[in-house]
């Protein structure tokens, strides 16, 4: 660890790194083994570097002050990571717990395979958002691209904007809520009526995400549509004649 690159504030809880001068490997090494009493870490000049703050396993707040590249906050456990910019492909991939927040837009495959925790994307998310989701929650303030929640097994996706083509193709037990238009549903996904439990869950997720409509008001949970699996792909249907 090159001590010169690390700046510790007088308060002791905050540590800052500048990726323009400190190699990413040193930063991630510190995040994995050197945190000690640190409660907050700030990373300046991320400039699209890959794998920033991957593999976290501590309840610390990490602020990435700019645009992150691939795999930011991948495999996150316990940490609360905020990207103050846009995130590249596969942000919060395989997250286990904690919170990841992207203030701008997220590229493809956001929260792919994530088991737990919460991903909030304040802008749009690209294609394949929540692909193979295994239990995490995702709240997107904007719209999501095509093939989102493909083969998602468990967890929830809330989309305040629109969804692209083939939403929820081959869904298992994950649930999707969309406020705007859905361009098309994927195989075996269907619209279902909102239940009282959905309304309670949506209100809680939207509050946790802190997202509001254009007028600054909280979204009305009843304005969302519920999409879930028709469960017709759970068993082989010999009469379907390869139609899906």
């Amino acid at each position: 660890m090159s001590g010169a690159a690390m700046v510790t504030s007088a308060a002791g809880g905050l540590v800052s790194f500048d990726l323009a001068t400190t190699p990413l490997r040193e930063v991630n090494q510190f995040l994995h083994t050197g945190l000690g009493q640190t409660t907050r870490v700030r990373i300046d000049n991320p400039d699209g570097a890959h794998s920033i703050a991957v593999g976290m396993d501590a309840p610390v707040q990490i602020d990435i002050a700019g645009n992150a590249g691939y795999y930011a906050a991948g495999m996150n456990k316990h940490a609360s990571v905020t990207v103050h910019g846009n995130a590249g492909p596969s942000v919060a991939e395989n997250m286990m717990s904690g919170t990841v927040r992207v203030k701008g837009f997220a590229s493809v495959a956001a929260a792919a395979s994530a088991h737990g925790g919460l991903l909030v994307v304040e802008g749009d998310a690209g294609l394949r958002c929540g692909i193979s989701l295994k239990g995490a929650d995702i709240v997107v303030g904007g719209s999501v691209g095509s093939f989102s929640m493909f083969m998602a097994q468990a967890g929830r996706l809330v989309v305040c904007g629109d969804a692209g083509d083939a939403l929820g193709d081959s869904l298992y037990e994950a649930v999707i809520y969309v406020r705007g238009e859905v361009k098309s549903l994927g195989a075996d996904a269907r619209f279902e009526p909102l239940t009282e439990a959905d309304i309670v869950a949506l209100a809680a997720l939207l509050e946790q995400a802190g997202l509001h409509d254009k007028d600054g008001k909280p979204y009305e949970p009843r304005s969302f549509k519920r999409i879930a699996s028709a469960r017709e792909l759970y068993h082989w249907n010999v009469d379907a004649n390869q139609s899906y």
Partner: protein
Amino acid sequence: MCGIVGLLIKKPELQDRLGEWATPMLIGMTERGPDSAGIAVYGEPVADGLRKISLHAPAGFDWQGLQRQLADVAGFEVRANHAVLTTSADPVALRAWFKLTHPMVHVLSVGRTIDLYKDVGTPAQIADRYGMAGFRGTHLVAHTRMATESAVTPENAHPYTAGEDWCLVHNGSLSNPNSLRRQLEPLGISFDGDCDTEAACRYFEWRMREGDSLEQALNKGFDELDGFYTFLMGTSDALAIVRDGFACKPALVAETDDWVAIASEYRSLAHLPGVKGATLFEPQPERIYAWRAQQ
């Protein structure tokens, strides 16, 4: 993998900075494409009746000897393994003459505005070898290659060209280049290498020669080209980008009042002056984006 890079300067007074700003963009994509790189740069058109022909030959080639054999030479500029010949000669006849008398010389591009350099080596080596930082012009298309389906050779490096003042770089892989080739070769369209990208390049050029606009040609490509692609293209006065319907291959656009920059990743945009205030977006799948240069 592979990396793509494009830069279009909006303000004529900034055209001197084209190569200086684009060089770190190219080098920023080294991890995506360390084995070859290429740059197509579009500048002032040569006078009516003249054309610029970019040539490549292996190291040690006697360019002066070649120049002595050529008639109608209005300009001949050698840089490392490349030469840009400005001539009034018919490019089709010239290409045939090279094939017959100097088979090691490859015609990389023909046009009134395009110069093209591509070679084997790291992006930094190639930028240095061809003096990229000094390139001036309206716009530029560049590529860093990580070969996946054909050999690492200068011919298989990108950009690819067909016709005049038209080039294309590709991040991705096509699964039907051979069937495209079998479709095009009987029409008299010949191929220089065996890279999948060349099939796409010649397909689009053929469609445009048949009367399609670039947009119409790309729309047909959505049906005809099978595989993954982000294509970045240059014409004498425009940059254009298109991604396949699955958008597996990344692309990011940054735009300010001064320039439009395109790259596979933000890493290649981070150094640009004014990027913090730029409008950033990822091109949507199966949508054609184009920006026009002002001469």
